[in-house]
């Protein structure tokens, strides 16, 4: 794969700075991120109406291209697309043509021939959505639904929406991300978003074996001792222990991990009394988080799911709108040159 992960904006944005793909938060400024959150706020209101649908993507076809298993992300993307009035095709790649030997490029060509307007892509390989964005026909929007250890930008944005709802904004906030940072594409996107939106402190709390090299360079501080790390926190984000991605002995045992880094009521009591508890799901009760905390009054885990639909509606309609505006602009230029 030749995807250039370093400078994605020539791919992601139109000349006018509108979104046309949503691949990563890298390079997206505070204003655009805030526009995404504001747009999502309006979609939350749509979700409370008698008819929870708007006509923005009417007549468009959205393909959910999931090369990796997912329940929550895929179903919220599906619901988001349907609430935008799009036609939705769910493709579970593991059980389809690729297992019969078809290459990714051929699969894409076939889907494009079905007049698809948007691919929502999840892939175990970092950079796969970039690669697809570089190779699809102009006019087709790509949304990253999680790629390898690289990014999960819609998850990070729905987390930002949840934080903004409960805390009013980001200024002065102290936020910690706890657990398996090493395997987490979510953590990378969250740290990026929190920095761009102006959070005061971003701490990662984890054992050394579950931290990527040079994690500080992402824009956060490291704390190995959870009791210290919980002090004065406004937001604590727990990550799932990604056992399926672990190679070798990164952990002594789950019990030991829970004792040191699991979020129990005792540990939560060390944070600010109004600290909210977040988790991207699926949660492992008794591994990263105590049941009483997950179901407790400070938990906003289910708000995150509701917000996921609104955020996905926002980025899908913004990216599709950018693609269509760009198409129109090119058409106008052709007409002006008299070549039509």
């Amino acid at each position, binding site marked *: 794969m030749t995807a250039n992960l370093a400078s994605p904006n020539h791919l992601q944005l139109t000349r006018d700075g509108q979104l046309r793909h949503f691949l990563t938060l890298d390079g997206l400024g505070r204003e655009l991120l805030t526009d995404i959150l*504001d*747009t999502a706020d*309006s979609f939350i209101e749509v979700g409370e109406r008698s008819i929870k649908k708007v006509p*923005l993507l009417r007549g468009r076809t959205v393909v959910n291209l999931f090369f990796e298993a997912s329940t929550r992300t895929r179903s919220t993307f599906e619901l988001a697309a349907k609430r935008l009035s799009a036609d939705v095709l769910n493709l579970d790649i593991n059980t389809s043509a690729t297992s019969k030997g078809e290459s990714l490029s051929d699969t894409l060509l076939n889907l494009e021939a079905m007049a698809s307007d948007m691919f929502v892509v999840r892939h175990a390989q970092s950079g796969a959505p970039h690669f697809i964005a570089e190779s699809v026909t102009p006019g087709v929007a790509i949304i990253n639904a999680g790629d390898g250890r690289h990014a999960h930008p819609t998850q990070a944005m729905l987390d930002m929406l949840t934080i903004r709802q409960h805390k009013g904004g980001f200024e002065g906030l102290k936020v910690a991300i706890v657990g398996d940072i090493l395997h987490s594409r979510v953590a990378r996107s969250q740290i990026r978003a929190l920095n761009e939106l102006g959070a005061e402190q971003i701490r990662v709390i984890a054992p050394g074996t579950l931290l990527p090299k040079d994690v500080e360079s992402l824009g956060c501080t490291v704390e190995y001792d959870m009791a210290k790390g919980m002090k004065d926190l406004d937001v604590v984000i727990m990550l799932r222990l990604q056992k399926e991605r672990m190679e070798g002995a990164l952990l002594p045992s789950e019990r030991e991990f829970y004792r040191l880094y699991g979020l129990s009521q005792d540990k939560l009591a060390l944070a600010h009394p109004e600290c909210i508890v977040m988790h991207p799901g699926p949660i492992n009760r008794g591994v990263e988080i105590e049941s009483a905390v997950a179901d407790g009054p400070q938990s906003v885990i289910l708000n995150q799911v509701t917000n996921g639909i609104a955020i996905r509606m926002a980025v899908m309609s913004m990216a599709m709108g*950018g693609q269509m505006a760009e198409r129109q602009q090119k058409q106008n230029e052709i007409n002006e040159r008299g070549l039509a």
Partner: protein
Amino acid sequence: MSALLDVDQLLDKLEAGLRNLLEERGIKSPVLIGIRTGGVWVADIIGKRLGIEEPFGELDISFYRDDFSRIGLNPKVTPSSLPFDTEDRDIILVDDVIMSGRTIRAAMNELFDYGRPASIILATLIDLGARELPIQPDVAGQSLKLDAPQRIKLRGPDPLRIEIQAAEQ
């Protein structure tokens, strides 16, 4: 270069027109819905003048615009808010200016996603003509014909001012 219209005079006419129409139709308890941004300001004032105590609703029609496929999504969309159930209600839909009629088409599509109102009355402060759809206001403060390069701008909310501007800005 800009000229001012007398807003109070337009509001007087709009109020009188609405009173007549409500009486003619026997509507006792209408609710107001303003279209953002200018329509909301007008709805606020008209609501007080008509003595409607129920808070007015606000519509942001960005998700229903018919030019989405040409210019994309308005990045400054704000949530619509209807603080009442529209089912079987008599609604006065308010905008500052009507021209092509496309905004009203979008607003009515949005309204019907909240329920089935008993009736909708369309009230606008100014009618600029130049219609592109078969939609007409029931009541308007004033009909106005602009010369090609002129534009109209409502400023508000307090005080409400209408400027007729020459071509640029």
